[in-house]
Every structure is written in C-alpha cells, then in structure tokens.
C-alpha cells in the first residue's frame, strides 16, 4: 500500500480498531461490568450533587427576583429590633426611593406540633404598575383574610392535619389563647417559600405579639433604578445610622455561596470515593489477565504496532468511560428531578419539621456536564495511561511464552 492510500483511510482504520475493541470487551463481560457499575455509580453520585445544588440555586434566584430591592432593619445593640414607623419618612425622602412599606412578620413556635411557623401580615394590595414578570412569592385569596382568620401554607396544613374551617389556638404574649380560623390554604405552586407560612391580619398579629401601632418588624424599600440600589442603601445608613439595609443581590449572593459550599463539600467528601475508584481503575488496568497478554502478544505478532495497541486501549477506555458517564448522568437526572433526590435530600437541603415538598425544575447545562466530565473521566483516564502503555509494549514472544507456562 503506498503512502497516499494509507493516509486516505484513517477513519476506516479507527473503525476497524473500535470494532475489534468492542468485540474484545464483550468477550470479557464479567470483568468489565464490575468496573462499569462502579464507574457509573461514582458519576451518578457526583452528578446528583451537582444537579441538585445548581437547580436549587436556580430556584432560589427565581424566587428572590420577586423580593423587594432593599430591606431595612433597625438595629439595637447589634441585634435586630422593631422598626419605628416614624423613621419611614426619613427613608422616603432619600432620593431614588420609589416606595417604602412597613412589614409585620415573625416566627411562632407551636409546641403541640414542635414546629416553627412564619407569620406574615400580607402587604396591602399593590398598585397594578408592578412589573408583571416578577413572580409573586405566594398567592392567596385576599378577600378571605378578615380579622380572626388566617391563611395557612401546605406544610402547616399537612403537619397539623388542618383544612378550611378548622381553627388553630395561638398562645399570645401574655399567655392568653387566641383562636384563629383557617380561611384558606396557599397555592401549592409556591411551596418552597410558603410551606411554613401563615398569613394573618394586622390586628391579630399585633395582639398576638404585643407590637404597638407605631412599629413594624422591618421596612421594604423599592428602588426604580437598579443601578442606584447601592447608593440608596448607603444613604439610608447615613440618614438612619442605627439601621441595616440588606440588598437583594447580597441575599442572592449569600444563598449562592451556601449552596456552592454545600455542593463543593459533597465533592470534597466524595473525593475519597473518587480516589478509591481511581486506584481500582489503575489496578484493573495494570492487572492484565493471561488471556489479555496473549491477545496483545498475538496482535503484535501479526503486525500491530505499539501505537495501535495504545489506540485500541484508548478506545476501550473511551467506550467504558462514555457508557458509565452517560448511564450515571441519566440515573442522576432521574434521581434528582423525578424522585426528588431521595438520597441527598437530608444532606443538601437542610431540615425542619415543616419542610416543604417541592420538585425541582429540571435544569442542566453544558457547564455542569463538562465539570462532571472533569471530575470523573479525567481522573480515570489519567490513572489508566501508564498501565495502558505497559500493556502495549509487551513483546510478542514474551507474552506468548509466559502464557504457555
């Protein structure tokens, strides 16, 4: 064969080698299935962790997009205190502020169920000028909320076995009991934010916690121009030095860091498993069976070059890696998005009595897949280079002589 024709069919050559590799893999099914399962398991665990953290991050950012630009809390002795409503004027006068509103909210511990509720007085009906793409945090039937009634989240309803018309007994600040009737439950689309939520009327809230008419828990500040948010926040601290403005982006950033950290921590913990797997792969690749040695010996005797054997081993690794990788990724997808990550839920989500039931919106990007590739396939490949080469340089006569023994 002259040089030109030899060069013309590199694809044919690769195809031939892949064909051979596949049939030789199939001949040693048992040995390879073990490796494949372990490999897929490693990919599956890492992929689950990555998918879970990034989709929960996505979810958090979607939810937070609907929150006010700035929240201002009053500080007393370094602690969060009630916000005196008379200070609202000062905030309103800061240039760039579009609207200021007081919020009433708090936590209530129900010792009957051992659960914490979040009590919120729903804000007055907003003007229709509000941008429509902002997803509201919760939906409820505003008309249902009369004095003496509450609207509860699904978590509360589930744990307390409550439905419309039942009532909950709250213990007020002075020990007296206040009975509030459940008027409605919140829409279940928003369970991530509304699971432990109870919407309560302003009067009932003030009665329950003894909060005077002149105070709110904190205030929200709306800023029309997003570029002005940091400036407005710094002006607020100048006007009211005893307050703490919290900017939405900061909350977002903090959530991001927390979930990054959790995902990273998972991987650091799992690195021991990856390492064990790499050692296993190394061992598998270097421990050639007599049959394999003989095979390589024969191949070289019939004219294969060292580089051809390396190529064959490369394809072997690629076939095993890709099969395990895709199997692991598909399993992880099913695990995280269809079964609600049964295995990792406790570790990654945190826990509480009223934990929301929610299913994550499937979200997968090329970035995640490449990261995963780097964390699994690359270590495997590196571990097998030297053993592959060792196998490939076997002299044909040595290989066959040894197997003859």
């Amino acid at each position: 064969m002259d040089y030109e024709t030899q060069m013309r069919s590199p694809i044919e050559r690769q195809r031939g080698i892949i064909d051979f590799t596949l049939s030789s893999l199939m001949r040693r099914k048992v040995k390879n299935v073990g490796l494949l399962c372990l490999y897929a398991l490693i990919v599956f665990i890492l992929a689950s962790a990555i998918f879970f953290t990034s989709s929960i991050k996505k979810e958090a950012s979607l939810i937070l997009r609907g929150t006010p630009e700035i929240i201002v809390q009053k500080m007393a002795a370094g602690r969060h205190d009630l916000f005196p409503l008379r200070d609202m004027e000062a905030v309103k006068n800061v240039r760039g502020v579009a609207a200021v509103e007081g919020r009433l909210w708090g936590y209530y511990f129900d010792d009957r169920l051992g659960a914490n509720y979040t009590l919120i007085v729903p804000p007055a009906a907003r003007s229709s000028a509000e941008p429509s793409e902002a997803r509201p945090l919760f939906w409820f039937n505003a008309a249902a909320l009369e004095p003496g009634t509450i609207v509860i989240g699904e978590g509360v309803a589930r744990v307390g076995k409550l439905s419309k018309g039942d009532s909950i007994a709250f213990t007020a600040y002075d020990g007296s009991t206040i009975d509030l009737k459940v008027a409605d439950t919140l829409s279940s689309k928003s369970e991530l934010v509304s699971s432990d939520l109870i919407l309560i009327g302003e009067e009932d809230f003030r009665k329950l916690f003894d909060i005077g008419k002149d105070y709110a828990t904190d205030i929200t500040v709306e800023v029309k121009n997003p570029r002005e948010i940091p400036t407005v926040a710094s002006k607020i601290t100048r006007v009211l030095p005893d307050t703490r403005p919290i900017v939405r982006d900061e909350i977002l950033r903090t959530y991001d860091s927390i979930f990054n950290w959790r995902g990273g921590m998972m991987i650091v913990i799992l690195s021991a498993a990856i390492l064990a797997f790499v050692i296993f792969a190394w061992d598998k690749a270097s421990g050639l069976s007599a049959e394999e040695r003989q095979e390589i010996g024969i191949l070289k005797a019939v004219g294969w070059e060292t580089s051809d054997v390396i190529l064959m081993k490369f394809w072997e690794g690629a076939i095993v890696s890709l099969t395990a990788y895709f199997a692991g990724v598909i399993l992880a997808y099913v695990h995280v998005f269809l079964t609600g990550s049964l295995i990792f839920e406790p570790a990654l989500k945190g826990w509480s009595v009223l934990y929301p039931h929610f299913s994550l919106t499937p979200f997968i990007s090329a970035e995640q897949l490449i990261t995963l590739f780097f964390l699994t396939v690359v270590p495997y490949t590196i571990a097998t280079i030297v053993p592959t080469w060792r196998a490939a340089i076997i002299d044909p006569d040595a290989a066959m002589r040894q197997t003859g023994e």
Partner: protein
Amino acid sequence: MILHPEVIANLLASYAATFMVIYATFYGVQILRRWDIRSGDELQLALERKTYLISTVLTYVFALQLFSIFLYVFTADALCPLFVGAMCAAGTLNVNAFGYPTLLIKILTFMLAGLWLILNHADNQGYDYPLIKKKYSLLAFIVPFMILETILESAYFLGLKADVITSCCGSLFSIEREAGLGFILVSLPERAMAWIFYVSMLCTLTCGIFFYRRGRGGYLYSILSAMMFVVSIISIVSFISPYVYELPTHHCPFCIVMREYHYIGYFLYMLLFTAAVCGIGTGALLPFRGVQSLTPALGIFIRRLAIASTGSYAAFTAIVTCEIASSNLMM
C-alpha cells in the same frame, strides 16, 4: 477560596495536566541526554518504548488543555453572582490580578502542546526518529509554562472571596474593588476593524491556498495565520460579539460561549485554535522538509496542515458572516 464543584474541577485539571507534563519531561530529558538511534543497548530500547508513553501523555494533556480553557471561562461566568460589579466572566476574571494572566497562559500552553503533537506526528513519519531532540527540547520548554499556569490558576481561585452578607451589614456599598492587573478589552472602532478583519482574512486564505497548491510561501502563511489569530480575537471583541448579542455596547468575548447564544462561541474558538495551531505548525515543520527519512511524507503532512488551517479560518469567517447577516443589529 470558593468551594465550588467547578473550581475543584479546574484545579484538578490543572494539577493533573502539570503532573503529566512533568512526568513526561522526566523521561524526555533522559531521551535528550542518552538517545542514540544506532545503539542496540537496553537503555536505548527502553527509551524507544518510552516515546510511546510520552506521546500518549501529551495527547491527553493537549485535549485536557483545550477543555480546560472553556471550563475556566465558564467557571468564571458561573461565579460572577458572587462578586459586586461582575456581570459575567469578564468581571470575575478581573476580581484579582491572576484571572487574565491565567487565561492567556492557558491559551499559550494549549498552542505549545498542539505544536508538540504536530512535531510528534511528523517525527513518527520517519523510521529513524529524525526530530526527536527537537521534540523533547520543545517539551522541556513547555514545562515552565505549565507550572506557571498551575501557580497562577491556584492563586486566582484561592484568592477569590465572595461578597456575602456580613453580620453587621457593613456591606459592600459600591466599594469598587481595586481592579486587578486590569485588562483593557480593546474595543477598536467597529467599521475599521471589520475592514481589517475581512481584508487580512482574504490575504491569509489566499496565501494558504497558494501554499497548498504550489508549495511556496509557507513561512508567510505561518506568520499570517498567527497574526490572524490575534486579529480574530480582537475582531470578536470589537465587532463580532455585538452582532451576536444584538447589543451595540456589549463587547464581551466570553459570553458568546454561553447557553443563551447557543454555544456558538465554542465553534468559533475551536475553529480559531485549530486554525492557529495548524498554521503555526506549518511553519514549524518547513525547515525539516529536507530530512531524508521524512520525504515525501512530511511534504504531504505540511500541506494537509495548511489546508486544515485555511479551512478552519474559512469556516470561522463563514460563521461570523452568517451571524452578522442574520443579526437584528444594524451598525
């Protein structure tokens, strides 16, 4: 340090690649010192076998470097919400002084690894390893850059600290962080840059085809293709990316690899890298055309490289032109 899966993947890739290159160089130096093709010595035999190992290792490193450039960019992009004022990868890379230098040196090591593979392939065409000393000298030349890259990348990632809520509030407030080493993304006037891009591309392509057909002007093509790489990158910043984003003020060279733009950037950058590596490789191999054991194989290989490079540049231009033509932006 930000403990993020992608950061871990980046560092892992970097350490692994450097480790492999150092490992390969260890044997490479032995080959440089002891290689004697005429000897039938046991050592010589062992060294000849080692060459297979080294070229396998370098092939993997080369692939790893290519992926890691992209991984690095979108890790930077993924981290941008953590920093005040960073809107995408461009901002995150600027968070400290090591971001951009790492990227540049990554591109450099990728190109060098590519050149090494080209040299290696050429060397394998001859029966007597005619280029072996040159090949391993180049490998020894690559090592310091790989080590430097690892150090810079570690310094970059370890030095990142997210701007999160602190207990006092005390926050942020537009304390504009000191820009690191700073990196001014040159944004030259669009119209002029477009002319420069198309005219120089035309020259490069003509020269490439001329070399492929007549076998002359190889060095010129090599120089042109190296320059064209730089011109193309500047063009992406200057006028190509605004058309992709359909925003006359957005010049970021990184966002085009993102999902929102259908990952078009991957094609563009891969074509550019291929074109530049093959183009420079053409020139690097030309001096060895006279080596007896390499004729005629080397001549054919060089022409193939040249046409691969020309083809990649042509495809790059075609995609860019399509993007501009189909863009809703008029400038």
